[in-house]
């Protein structure tokens, strides 16, 4: 099971190596998609991979450390009404989450692959890509 979360760190949680504990204690595979944290706290977009039970425990740990946890169904949204199917985003996306479907010639967005890096947001001339964090 793979799920993405937005974590908001208060300043008191910054000192602790919490992500290390997620790996060590619960054997979770984690992927930090975005992080903006300094001594005052900050935000992180984290993907957790592991058994549902372990993910649940990991989240409990985060919450016990006063880290605010919000699961995200989607980090980036493609507005189909605005999109002109041009494909500027295709070569910008580092993980091929945006691809040209050779048959329909439409630009297909694969939510699963998206790492919420945000590179496509300002690259889209039709302003069809929105960052939802």
């Amino acid at each position, binding site marked *: 099971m793979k799920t993405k979360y937005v974590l908001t760190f208060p300043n008191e949680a910054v000192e602790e190596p919490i992500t290390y504990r997620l790996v060590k204690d619960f054997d979770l595979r984690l992927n930090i998609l975005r992080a903006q944290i300094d001594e005052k706290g900050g935000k992180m977009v984290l993907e957790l991979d592991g058994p549902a039970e372990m993910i649940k425990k990991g989240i409990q740990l985060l919450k016990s450390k006063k880290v605010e946890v919000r699961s995200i169904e989607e980090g980036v949204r493609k507005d189909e009404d605005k999109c002109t*199917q*041009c*494909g*500027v985003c*295709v*070569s*910008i996306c580092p993980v091929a989450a945006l691809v040209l479907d050779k048959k329909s010639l439409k*630009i297909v967005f694969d939510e699963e692959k998206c790492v919420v890096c945000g590179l496509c947001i*300002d690259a889209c001339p039709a302003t069809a890509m929105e960052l939802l964090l």
Partner: protein
Amino acid sequence: MAEEKQLRTYAEINKKIESKTASVMTAEEFKAKVAGEGLAKAAKDVDVVTTGTFGAMCSSGVLLNFGHSDPPIKMQKVWLDDIPSYAGLAAVDAYIGATELDESLNMFHGGAHVIEDLVRGKAVKLRAVAYGTDCYPKRDIESWISLKTVNQAVLFNPRNCYQNYAVATNGSNRMLYTYMGKLLPDYGNATFCSAGEISPLLNDPYFRTVGIGTRIFLGGAQGYVAWEGTQFNGKTPRSPNGTPRRSAGTLAVIGDLKKMSAEYIRALTMFKYGTSLSVGIGMPIPVLDLEMAKFCSVRDADIYTGVFDYSEQKRSRTVLREVNYAELKSGQIEIKGKKVPTSSLSSLYKARQISNELKRWISRGQFLIQEPVQRFDLDREFKPLDVRTKEGACK
């Protein structure tokens, strides 16, 4: 070009269109037919081939006539939703350009966005100032306009529909924001903007059937080719199949904005560059003879263009390599030994949609093929702007 045995005339084609018996194919369908059944058979069977393109066309704008106020005003400066519009024309005419920005340089709302709002039927705020004359005493006005209130709203684009264009990449170590989109450092990506084999002017490389007066699909309505486009360059080096290997011909196009649709007229923001307008253009190509059929059978693999490093801030950049559109559309090209992902700036999906729509119009007898009133001069020199003396300018 050799003399060709004529297969059909414009008059014959139009007669068939009027009786709804014309055989019309999109460029994609026609090329497949040539591949399957051969050129001679395709040329014999098909009367008209439809093409399309939908991309950023910066040299675009709309000419508006607001009607006269009471008392009348000779508008000297005009703003539409805060976007300055050129008003140095009589009293109540103004031209709003797609790339015009407001004083704050907000690139998310420029002239192109006002044009899209108009097309969507929205009201736009008009503000004008004047110095006042005996015949036009009013000195300022604020009002609202829409396509319903203005007398004319004419989309008149001095340079659209480039016949081929450069591929942009970035060899520097910083991100570039260009009219060719966001270019990642160290040859991180490459962008191209021609639709290749389905693009109008690559199917008639020598402008045999496209000239002044040609009726076209423009922004979802019927429009016309008004003139050669600015920066028209007919002397670009060509491949044996006639297609130019760099940016070449262009078109000035004109049409009634009131009849257009936001499906085919879209405002664009090129981040940190400015605004532009995506314009949908479709062109019918009459298969007059075997030569026209051959032109329309050209494939992506046989259309070439140059790749340029846009970090080179010069008028004439050095070409890194030549590529064909089959390579570009494959999603990856090689530049200096590196595999570089490619992006199309123009919508291939919309280009196909336009060629299909135009095919429908012709098949239903709603769109006739107009022979050019005058063809373009392909031999004219394409000139640069140099810093000259007053005397040097007239030499």
